[in-house]
C-alpha cells in the first residue's frame, strides 16, 4: 500500500486520469442496479418517465405488498430457497464422497466410470433436456422438488473438482491415520475434509448459485405456477402482458438478494465459487 502511494505521488496526473476512467466505467456498471432500486419505488404507470427518476418515489411498500398479494412470487421464493439449500447440502455430500472414492480408492470399473464422467463434463447439458423431461413424466415427477434436486446431484463438475483437490492430499497422511487405528469415517471427517475446506466452500457457493439461477431445465419440468422457482416465476410474470411492472421489478430485485448477501458476507469464497463455475461453463 505504501508502495502504491509513493508511485501515485510521483505520477499524480496519471494516477488521477486512470482512477477517473475506472470510476466512470464503474458508474456505468452500477447504474443498472441504481435504476432498478429506484424503479421499485414507483408505481407501474410512473416507472417510465421522461426525464427518468433519480430519487426514490413513494410506492416501494405498495410494490412489495402487491407482488406477494397479486402473484405467486412468495411461493416461488420459498420453492427456490428449499430446493437450492437442499440441493447444496446433498450435492456437497455426493460430490465429496464420489470425489474421495475416485481420488483415494481403487475399485472395479473406476477407469470407465471416470471416463464417462469426463465425457458428460464436456457435453452440453441442453442435450439432456428432452430425455430428462421424459424421465420426469414417466416417474410422475413434473412440478416436484425432487425433479429439480436429483438430476444434478451427481454433478460431473463437482465430482471432478473434489477429486482433483483430494488427489493432492498425500497418501502417507491417510495411511498414518489408519495405522494409528482411525476408522475410515474418522480419516475422512478429520483428515480429508478439513484439508479441502476452501474447495468445499467454493463448491457450496457454486451449487447454490447454479440451482438458484437455473432456468431452462426448471422451465421444462415445472408446469403449474405453484411449483415455479424464482427465475421461472419472473419469466412468466414478464410474459403476461397484464403484469404490474413495479411488482415485476420488485421481484427482480428480491431475486438477487440472497446472492448479494452471500457475496457481501463470503466475498472470498464467493469469488472462488464463481471462478470455479467459470471453469465449468
Amino acid at each position: 500500500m505504501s508502495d502504491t502511494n509513493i508511485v501515485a505521488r510521483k505520477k499524480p496526473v496519471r494516477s488521477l486520469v486512470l482512477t477517473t476512467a475506472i470510476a466512470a466505467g464503474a458508474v456505468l456498471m452500477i447504474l443498472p442496479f441504481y435504476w432498478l432500486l429506484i424503479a421499485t419505488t414507483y408505481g407501474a404507470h410512473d416507472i417510465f418517465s421522461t426525464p427518468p427518476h433519480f430519487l426514490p418515489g413513494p410506492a416501494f411498500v405498495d410494490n412489495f405488498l402487491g407482488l406477494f398479494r397479486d402473484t405467486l412470487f412468495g411461493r416461488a421464493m420459498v420453492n427456490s430457497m428449499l430446493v437450492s439449500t437442499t440441493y447444496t447440502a446433498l450435492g456437497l455430500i455426493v460430490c465429496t464422497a464420489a470425489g474421495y472414492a475416485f481420488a483415494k480408492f481403487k475399485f472395479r470399473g473406476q477407469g470407465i466410470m471416470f471416463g464417462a464422467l469426463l465425457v458428460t463434463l464436456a457435453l452440453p447439458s441442453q442435450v439432456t433436456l428432452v430425455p430428462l423431461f421424459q424421465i420426469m413424466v414417466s416417474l410422475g415427477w413434473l412440478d416436484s422438488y425432487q425433479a429439480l434436486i436429483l438430476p444434478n446431484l451427481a454433478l460431473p463438475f463437482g465430482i471432478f473438482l473434489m477429486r482433483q483437490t483430494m488427489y493432492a492430499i498425500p497418501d502417507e497422511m491417510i495411511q498414518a491415520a489408519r495405522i494409528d487405528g482411525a476408522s475410515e469415517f474418522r480419516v475422512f471427517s478429520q483428515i480429508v475434509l478439513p484439508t479441502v475446506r476452501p474447495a468445499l466452500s467454493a463448491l457450496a457457493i457454486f451449487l447454490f448459485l447454479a440451482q438458484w439461477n437455473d432456468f431452462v431445465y426448471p422451465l421444462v419440468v415445472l408446469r403449474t405456477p405453484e411449483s415455479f422457482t424464482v427465475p421461472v416465476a419472473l419469466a412468466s410474470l414478464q410474459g403476461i402482458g397484464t403484469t404490474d411492472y413495479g411488482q415485476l421489478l420488485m421481484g427482480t430485485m428480491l431475486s438477487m438478494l440472497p446472492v448479494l448477501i452471500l457475496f457481501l458476507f463470503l466475498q472470498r469464497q464467493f469469488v472462488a465459487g464463481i471462478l470455479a463455475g467459470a471453469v465449468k461453463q
Partner: protein
Amino acid sequence: MFVLFVGFKLYPYISAFWLSLTKNVGGDIEFAGLENYTRLLQDPLFYKALGNTGIILLVQVPIMLVLAIVLAVAFNSVLLKFRAFWRTAYFVPIVMGLVAYGILFRALFNTNEGFVNYLIGFIGLDPIPWLGDPLWAKISIVVAMTWHYTGQNAIIYLAQMQSIGGELYEAAHVDGATAFQRFWHVTVPGLRPAIVLTVILSTIGTLQLFDEPYVLTNGGPDNATLTVGMYLYQNGFKYFDFGYASAIGYALTIIIGVISLIQLRLFKEKS
C-alpha cells in the same frame, strides 16, 4: 450415487442420441435413421439460429475479453487508487441471475421511455429501437452480456497477472521498454493460460446461449436473435418434436467440439 449418475446423466445422453434417430409418426415412435440430421442440414431456420449465435459470439467474446484484460491491467496498476472497491464494482453484476438481468435490461432498453435512450439523448443522439430492430436486438444482447460477464473475466486475468514475476517487468524496464511494450511482451504472454481458458469457455457458453435471448427479445424481432439453444427448446417443448430437438442438441455438441479443437490447435501453433 452411481444410480444418480447413470440414471440422470449417462442415460439421458444416450437416450437423446437414440431419440435423434427417431421420429414421431401419429403418436408412434419410429426409427428414422439420419432423417432428422439431413432435415437439419436443409433447415433455413437452423442456419439462421446458427448464424445469429455465431455473430453474437464473434462480436461479444472479443470485446468482452479485451475489456477484461484492460480492466485487469488497471486493477493491477499501482497508479489506481481504491483498487479493491473498483474490483468489486465491476464484478458485482454477476450476482444477478440470467433471467433477472434479462428483465432489467429489457426495461432499460425500452425504446420510448428506456433509461439507455435517455442517456443517449443526453449526448444528442436519436432514440435507438434497441429491441425492435434485427441488428440492434443483437447489439442489445451483446451489451447486456458484456455488462454481466466482463468483471468476472477481469478477475480471472487479474489472478493470473499476479503470478507473473516482477523481475520480468524490471528487466523490461531496464532494457528501456515502454509501458505498451511491457504490456505486449510480458503481460500478454504471461496471461496466455488464462486467455486460452476464457476464450474457450466463453465460446462454449455463448454457443449454448438461451436465457438472455429468451427473456430479452424472445428470439425476435423476426428471429433475429433466435439462438441454437432457443431453437432446440422450441422444437422440443413448443412443437414437441423430441427427435428433431435431440438432433439439434447433438449437432450443437459436434459444433462445440469442432470449434474447441480448432481453438486449441490455433493456440498451440502460436506458442
